[in-house]
């Protein structure tokens, strides 16, 4: 049911264009405007939100939209499957997945813009037009990425959000650390995008199309190639799909901060907290996982690629969660938690749990944006102090911040009935049932499960250290107040974090036999849908076997009980250690592990070494080689000719007798030569 250009969808481009207009206005006129560009941003994102909701409602009404709007570049090709023409274009694809994501992105962007009014404008900040312009450009790029209808367009906006991230991380450019963090973020994600771009080029060269949906899509072409047993670039079709899928995954791992390209995200906390909330928690980092969901049909063709996604996800979930345990800076805890949570989404996607992955993506966007904005409010309260050991006791002084933050924390830790519980549980359940048949997935599941305990622990360690106990500094005794523009977004997100999980109560639906898994229906084409992009289509394609312990319901309850129990255990451990009037650091108990965790498993060290210890000396050696050998040869040639001429010029003595002698000698030599050649002798 793909709609035509008419109707509400003809207004769809405006969703992205509003923030683009805000970008231009803030950049050009920001200095003259009241609030330095905040107002156009707020109006633009509000309009985007309204239009996104309109699109959402239209999809709910059973219609979808897939339309090419603009041809960017076209030409002749020779592809592996015989296509001879290719057109790279900009087009929109509005189906249940992208409609949902549009609402998430524009809602969070709107709330962050409002929050910025209280967070950024109050501080006598210079460069606000630049801030709001970058934010507008980001929102534009992100929204365009979300409803891109082809892989190349997605790549283009994927890179552009990277630019905005660079600009915003480096917002406080007068410091030394922010520009460095910005550079690192762009470079590490660029490294991932390198593989992504090879993937795009390879897919386009193979199938002659980069479209996500429809009969002309590369997903369908790949399916056909596998069925026909075609050889692609010297590989059998399935292997080639795995290779190209993994190349694209390079970009996903970079953007969604998965191991081993996660190192940029904690550094990215140098940016304003609002930026962390919007870009480095709720939206841009989600772009990676979203891309996997967008082209899930392609990954579904390759069990190998899926297993790798699941394993990377499970590993990252645990790996990052352990690091979150020892951080003292509130934003650092949240950064590692973000990496860990995206690991869960990858795990969900990798085991074929498309709905679970998207569900967690949505919930996480809300509760993590909430937690970051909450930490932003705490930072305002604390006069720009981020060390949790200098806080304490803020609970009574800032109740709205506290209760909303608590809602986010409960969601993050996965405590029933907050949103995170439902989605994380679904991810783990999907991983478990596949894991019972596939040992690799079982390992990924085990890591994900173990991470639940650490998540519960670091989350409540953060809550208790920040809000409970006695104030540990004078600032905490007498915090700065916060205005409505900070409180209102917190309340909205707090409600969402608490309630949004109810859209897909899978365990309850199973036990009680009720039809209440609305998100699953949404993604499965109960409303509008695009052929080939529905959950049950994906489910049929994924070739994983599923196993159960006892019945399906028993397995489900077991899984839910296990993860809830671990989350509560983690939270309880944090309660015992830190929910006391004067909490102590318990770092010595960790022994040598503390040093390793504190140093983030030395991941930064080796990556910095790769850049500065290996590549840079290599470049300097190349430079030396270039100057001495290559340029030396060039100068050598000219030196030789100069030397030669300085020697030859000595025969120019200026004496006529010498010249006469030379002429005669030369003439004789010529005669002799000719004579020899002519055979006179």
């Amino acid at each position: 049911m793909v709609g035509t250009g008419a109707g509400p969808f003809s207004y769809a481009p405006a969703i992205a264009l509003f923030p683009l207009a805000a970008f231009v206005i803030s950049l050009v006129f920001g200095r003259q405007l009241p609030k330095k560009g905040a107002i156009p941003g707020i109006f633009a994102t509000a309009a985007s939100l309204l239009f996104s909701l309109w699109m959402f409602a239209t999809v709910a009404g059973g219609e979808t939209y897939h339309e090419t709007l603009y041809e960017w570049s076209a030409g002749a090709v020779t592809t592996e499957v015989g296509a001879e023409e290719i057109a790279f274009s900009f087009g929109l694809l509005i189906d249940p997945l992208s409609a949902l994501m549009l609402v998430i992105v524009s809602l969070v962007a709107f709330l962050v813009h409002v929050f910025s009014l209280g967070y950024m404008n109050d501080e006598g900040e210079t460069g606000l037009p630049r801030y709001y312009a970058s934010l507008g450009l980001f929102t534009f790029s992100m929204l365009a990425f979300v409803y891109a209808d082809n892989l190349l367009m997605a790549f283009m906006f994927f890179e552009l959000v990277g630019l905005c991230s660079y600009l915003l991380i480096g917002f406080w450019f007068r410091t030394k650390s922010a520009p460095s963090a910005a550079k690192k973020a762009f470079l590490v994600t660029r490294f991932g995008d390198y593989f992504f771009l090879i993937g795009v080029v390879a897919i386009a060269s193979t199938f002659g199309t980069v479209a996500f949906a429809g009969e002309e899509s590369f997903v369908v072409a790949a399916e056909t190639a596998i069925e026909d047993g075609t050889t692609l670039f010297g590989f059998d079709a399935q292997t080639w799909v795995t290779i190209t899928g993994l190349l694209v995954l390079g970009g996903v791992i970079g953007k969604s901060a998965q191991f081993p390209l996660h190192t940029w995200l904690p550094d990215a906390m140098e940016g304003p907290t609002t930026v962390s909330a919007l870009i480095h928690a709720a939206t841009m980092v989600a772009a990676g996982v979203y891309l996997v969901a967008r082209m899930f049909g392609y990954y579904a063709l390759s069990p190998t690629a899926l297993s790798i996604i699941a394993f990377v996800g499970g590993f990252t979930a645990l790996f990052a969660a352990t690091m979150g345990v020892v951080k003292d800076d509130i934003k650092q805890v949240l950064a590692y938690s973000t990496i860990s949570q995206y690991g869960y989404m990858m795990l969900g996607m990798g085991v074929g749990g498309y709905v679970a992955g998207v569900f967690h993506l949505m919930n996480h966007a809300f509760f993590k944006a909430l937690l970051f904005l909450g930490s932003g409010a705490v930072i305002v309260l604390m006069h720009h102090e981020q060390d949790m050991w200098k806080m304490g006791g803020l609970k009574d002084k800032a109740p709205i911040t506290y209760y909303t933050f608590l809602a986010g924390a409960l969601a993050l830790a996965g405590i029933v009935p907050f949103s995170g519980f439902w989605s994380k549980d679904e991810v783990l359940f999907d991983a478990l049932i596949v894991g019972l048949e596939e040992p690799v997935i079982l390992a990924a599941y085990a890591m994900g499960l173990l991470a639940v305990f650490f998540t519960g622990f670091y989350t409540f360690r953060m809550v208790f250290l920040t809000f409970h106990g006695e104030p540990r500094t004078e600032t905490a005794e007498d915090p700065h107040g916060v205005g409505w523009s900070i409180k209102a977004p917190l309340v909205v997100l707090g409600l969402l974090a608490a309630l949004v999980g109810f859209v897909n109560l899978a365990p309850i639906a199973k036990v009680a036999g009720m039809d209440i898994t609305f998100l699953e229906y949404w993604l499965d084409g109960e409303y509008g849908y695009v052929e080939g992009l529905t959950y049950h289509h994906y489910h049929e394609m994924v070739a994983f076997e599923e196993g159960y312990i006892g019945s399906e319901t028993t397995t489900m309850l077991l899984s839910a009980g296990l993860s809830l129990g671990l989350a509560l255990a983690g939270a309880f451990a944090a309660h015992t250690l830190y929910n006391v009037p004067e909490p102590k650091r318990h770092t010595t108990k960790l022994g040598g592990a503390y040093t390793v965790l504190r140093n983030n498993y030395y991941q930064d060290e080796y990556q910095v070494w790769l850049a500065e210890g290996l590549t840079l000396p290599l470049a300097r050696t190349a430079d030396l080689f270039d100057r001495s050998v290559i340029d030396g040869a060039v100068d050598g040639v000219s030196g030789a000719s100069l030397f030669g001429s300085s020697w030859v010029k000595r025969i120019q003595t200026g004496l006529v007798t010498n010249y006469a002698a030379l002429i005669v000698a030369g003439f004789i030599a010529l005669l002799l030569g000719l004579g020899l050649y002519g055979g006179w002798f």
Partner: protein
Amino acid sequence: MMIEALIAVALIGALVTFVAPNRVAGKLAFAISLVPAALSLWMFTAFDGSGNALLDGDLAFESHLEWIQLGEYSIEWFVGLDGISLPLVVMTTILCSLAILSSWTPIDSRESQFYGLVLFIEANLIGVFSALDFFVWFIFWEAVLIPMYLLIGVWGGPDRKYAAIKFFVYTNVASLVMFGAFIALVFGLGDAVTSFAMPEIADAMVNGGVQSSVFGIDPGTFTALVFIAMFLGFAVKVPVVPFHTWLPDAHVQAPTPASVLLAGVLLKMGTYALLRFNFTMFPEQVETFAVPIAAIAVISVIYGAMLALAQTDLKRIVAYSSVSSMGYVILGLIAYTQFGVGGATFQMVSHGLISGLMFMSVGVIYNVTHTRSVEEMSGLADRMPIAVGILVAGAFGYMGLPLMSGFHGEFTIFFGAFQADFAYAPLFTALAMFGIVIVAGYLLFALQRTVFGPYHLETDYDVGRAPLHDVAPMFVLLALIIALGVAPELIFDMITNAVDPILNGGDL
């Protein structure tokens, strides 16, 4: 007669500027240079050619004039434009105008001679891209060297004489090799050609080629030798590793506007000539030598980028990065697919604009700080926000940010090369693509150290905002870069139309 008009305006303008007083020379030259810029833009909109200029295409603005009869060979004034040369001509005229504008601040001696020479270069550059008779083309080709030699040698930095002579001798010796090889080829073709008109020679080469042995060398080997000699001749101009060492010296010593023209247009003479001669006239040899040339392209990209990474002089960084970017162009050409060759041509224009912008930005910084060393400054964004903003935008353009022209150039080259026919084409492509990571490394590193961080300047100068005439040309370039990035079809259509016959043995 449009092309003649362009050349004549620039030539007469050069003469007028030479005799004009120093204090008005800059403004006068800028005003004059607007005429060819406007004319070429009009030609762009009125363009009605199709096909390839050398392969029976319909030329736009074509004109012939009998000139010299040299034995059996006639030489004539023969100019015309196709979809490959027109964008390059437009880029040249625009870049020359902007380069003149950007000279107002830094050039403060012998102005009338300086601007006269810039206009003289412009005339010759237009000639190089529009001439279709080999002799006429070669005269323009050589005539470009002299003004550039003087621009570097007279207005350059401390080591200007060494750099100017190296530039002149190196590229001139290379031209000699190429010239000798080409004349030998014409004689080798025997009765098949009766003039030095490039379309006639191309036609003879594509339909038959060298038939009998020349100087006792069999036709196949002879043609291959000519191909190699011409490739080497042009490789110095491009420049391709290992013939690149004249470039950083020339750039570092050259005054900013000369660098803009050198990187923006002069390097494209090399790739343009490669496309017109080697890649149009020798389709069989292109196939034979595909793998070694692809290897050279990959080495140029990666090695050039690594060298850029090691530099601390901003101009050297941009200079070496040009070596890297030109490697992409070679890769696109050797791909010999529509996207590859078309992308390479697009990249010539795109790189002309972007490297021009980068050199201008570095020049604007140098104007106020009097240093180009990365180690001697930081935090300039604090003092000159607009200029730095454009520099950052230009740097991202150089990194191939989507919706800027560089991305289209690089993407189409990669895409075209990935599906090329020669062995391991995808692997070569993937290796060359790693350039996009290294370029981000050295440019972001340079930005981090020079324009961000706390404000600091070793040299004792007062840094303030750049004047409008410094910033305006950068805005124009940035606008063009974004326009071509968003709507590459503006020129890509006409480029692929002119590229097609090359790949299809002369057919459209």
